[in-house]
């Protein structure tokens, strides 16, 4: 089935995906209309992962997975969970993976552990093939590797301290082995299905270069990770109005900043795109963001901060209305709030009264919350 211009535009609109792709629409349509007749081979392999990314992909709608496969001329030749391997042949699945051709797209789910911590199949002589070897072999053949999920992108969950199996992302492996194939990271635990499907769609339509041009400092397409969740959050007004939750499960709508929300340090479009057909996202379910798209997830240093522990962060103090980032020095502000309001202007690059008002309120809140937290820690000791 070939996708008409109208169908495609409808698809893009439904994806809502791209303010980004919006700009490229004419080019995408042109690409579609001149699309090659043959199918684009795509193989999906799993390393140290949990299959959550695959399950997330199944949640896509408009198009669903089957539509995407037919519309985008995507030949999903190997996928460990949904493939119809030759059911009667013991090595049928392996043969299909070995047939991955030059120039195809390789999708990787799961982190890359060292050596034999993860193996897929074995050679004719019986020696097992490590996941690293598969990535090396197929990665060199691929025209690009799409690393889906935080594990494949940066190591993710299994690379949490103390990283027991030496997990890292695909890019790290390619750097170690001098493999030049470009890697697109689509992190998330799991990633939103739109992020994955739109990335695949652009790649198989012959526009991997657009994706590569859009990558941010962490190798992510910046379309999907445009700004801090805090800045896009529907509860932002509760932060600005200092209605801030002090414990989980409060019945009123409040900002979750003090109970560990990683929104201020996490870039993703979850608040706008929302999850599972747009019904919800973590913060709307009153659950603090855990920063699952960030390279540092879930904490790679010893004794990382707990997910429900407050994280102080400069981004929180730079409301978007101000042109320059404003570093909020809470301690001295707390002191100055007790001293004279005049000294505030010396601390602030903007020095406006409005800002001073916000700063004083915030500082007071911080001090209050911190002393309460200290009490809690003692109490729970």
């Amino acid at each position, binding site marked *: 089935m070939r996708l008409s211009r109208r169908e495609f535009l409808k698809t893009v609109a439904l994806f809502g995906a791209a303010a980004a792709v919006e700009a490229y629409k004419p080019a995408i349509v042109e690409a579609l209309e001149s699309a090659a007749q043959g199918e684009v081979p795509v193989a999906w392999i799993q390393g*140290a*992962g*949990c*299959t*959550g*990314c695959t*399950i*997330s992909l199944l*949640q896509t*709608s408009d198009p*669903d*997975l*089957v539509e995407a496969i037919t519309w985008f001329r995507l030949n999903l030749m190997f996928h460990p*969970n*949904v*493939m*119809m391997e030759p*059911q*009667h042949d*013991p090595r049928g*699945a*392996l043969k299909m993976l070995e047939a991955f051709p030059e120039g195809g797209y390789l999708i990787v789910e799961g982190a890359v*552990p060292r050596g*034999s*911590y*993860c*193996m*897929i*199949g*074995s050679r004719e002589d*019986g020696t*097992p093939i490590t996941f690293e070897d598969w990535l090396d072999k197929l990665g060199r053949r691929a025209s690009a590797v799409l690393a889906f999920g935080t594990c494949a992108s940066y190591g993710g*969950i*299994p690379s949490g301290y*103390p990283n*027991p199996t030496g*997990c890292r992302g695909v890019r790290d492996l390619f750097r170690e082995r001098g493999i030049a194939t470009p890697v697109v990271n689509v992190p998330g*635990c*799991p990633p939103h299905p739109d992020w994955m499907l739109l990335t695949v769609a652009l790649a198989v339509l012959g526009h991997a270069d657009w994706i590569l041009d859009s990558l941010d400092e962490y190798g992510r397409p910046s379309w999907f990770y445009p700004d801090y969740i805090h800045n896009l959050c529907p509860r932002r007004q509760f932060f600005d109005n200092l209605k801030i939750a002090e*414990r*989980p*499960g409060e*019945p009123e709508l409040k900002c979750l900043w003090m109970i560990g929300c990683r929104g201020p340090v996490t870039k993703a479009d*979850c608040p706008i795109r929302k*999850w*599972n057909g747009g019904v*919800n996202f*973590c*913060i709307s*379910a*009153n*659950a*603090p963001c855990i920063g699952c798209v960030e390279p540092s997830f*879930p904490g790679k240093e010893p004794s*990382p901060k*707990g*997910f*429900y*522990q407050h994280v102080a962060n400069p981004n929180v103090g730079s409301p978007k209305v101000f042109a320059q980032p404003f570093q909020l020095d809470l301690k001295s502000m707390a002191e100055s709030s007790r001293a004279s309001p005049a000294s505030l202007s010396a601390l602030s690059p903007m020095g406006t009264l409005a800002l001073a008002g916000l700063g004083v309120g915030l500082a007071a809140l911080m001090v209050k919350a911190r002393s309460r937290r200290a009490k809690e820690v003692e109490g729970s*000791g």
Partner: protein
Amino acid sequence: MVEITIEPMTRIEGHLAVKLDMRDGRVADAYAMGTLWRGLERVVIGRDPRDAPIILSRICGVCHGVHRQTSVLAIEHACMGEGYHPPDNAVRIRNIIEGIQETWDHAAHLTVLAGPDYAVYGLAGKRCPGLRQPPWAPPASGKPASTSAPCLEIDVDRYYQLLHSAILPTQKLAHEAMAILGGKVPHHMTALPGGVTVVPTPADVALAYAKMRDVNTTIHAVYDYVWNDFVPHLKEEHPDVLEALLNIGIGVRNFLAYGVCPDPDRGYAKFLEGGALFNYPANTTPEPVDLEEIEECVKYSWYTDVSGGKVSREPPPEPYYGKPGAYSWAKAPRYKGKPCEVGPLARMLINRKYTPLSPHGASVLDRTLARLEELKLYADAVLDWILNLGAHLKEPVYDEAFKIKDGEGFGTWEPPRGALLHYIKISGGKTAAYQCVVPTTWNISPRGPMGERGPIEEALIGTPVPYNAEAGYYDVISPVRIVRSFDPCLACSIHLMTPDGRLQKASVTPTPP
């Protein structure tokens, strides 16, 4: 003797290879081997205990909600002691999430994972004379069938059409309902020690109900079709095929379940009770479960002999690759020294909600049909639970008195795949020790102390595996069906690792007999 290695097993969660020793065209011995280690229990050590549910939810992305739930229960037990319950609404919301999880997971297994092995019980198979086609069946593609029972033979074109028209939209609806209470799915975000975060509105409840109502309608239609049309069709038209399916994959016939979903409106009686049922069907009376009777054995696992033992006293496993006689990284959990099957068949038999078709009390088909039975049970119950939540919306969802305290605790639960146990030890406000004994470890376990096989290994014994001379390989569809009927989830079962472990595998390319 001929050895066959099936690798990698597909359409299961995780990395698994199965080795079969063949004699006279039948499986004489079987070894199941996992090929991935992540060490997630190590990752939670030294962290805030409340992080454990978030990280361990990622043990598995298929039944994600259940590890979060069980970990939360273990922490609540450790901090607040025996008999602690968070506010009723928290329990209700957790039960609904569990109910949707079971519904989604069983439905996905029966269609996407195991479905193609049976051609989705005829739903997407080749058109078979005498079988009424359900209204949702896509048109037959007209390709000739190659077996005597075409309704069991997958028709890939039809299958993809069905995937598009029914399966994907239905599973998506279930996950949307779950996301209303969980924030996002997979890896929902709302359950935490002391309650849940989400405060549902009447609109949330109504939307979740509407979505699950739709799912329920579809599930009932499929359930009725399987029992009213498909199974009778097998009985009448293909009695030989039915008999074959009822005589393979029998297994150990010991069953274990911990019980699940305490109902705050019925004095915390469980929706499905736990129990241990030995030697079914000769014995049909389950006995109560004593967690102290669970032991992990390592005689045939690559760990030193001092590893293993009772869950709470178990030392961290000491890897010993190349230990004589050992062949697996999975440990062998035993209840009262016996291997036990866990999962929907175990729960349905212990709760007397399913009568096996096979005279042996278990078979590859019974395991699958018991899953369908439980699917309907949950799909019905979850609707009541959602309505009941709607009647209690004003109640709190989080216990302000909950505090992290030092101690140790167990959490037990029944994920779709069977009995799940989490153990946590908290000291100095941090996680000091963590153990999970997960369903697939029970099912996929290697031999135990007396040399007795694990449930999947036992279930494979005696299975016919004919040689296909034309294609040049052994036809392994029957062993593959048996392994998938247990719905193995490898990411869960092997969560431990070794510093420099290497898996060497004696894989012999099959030769004609």
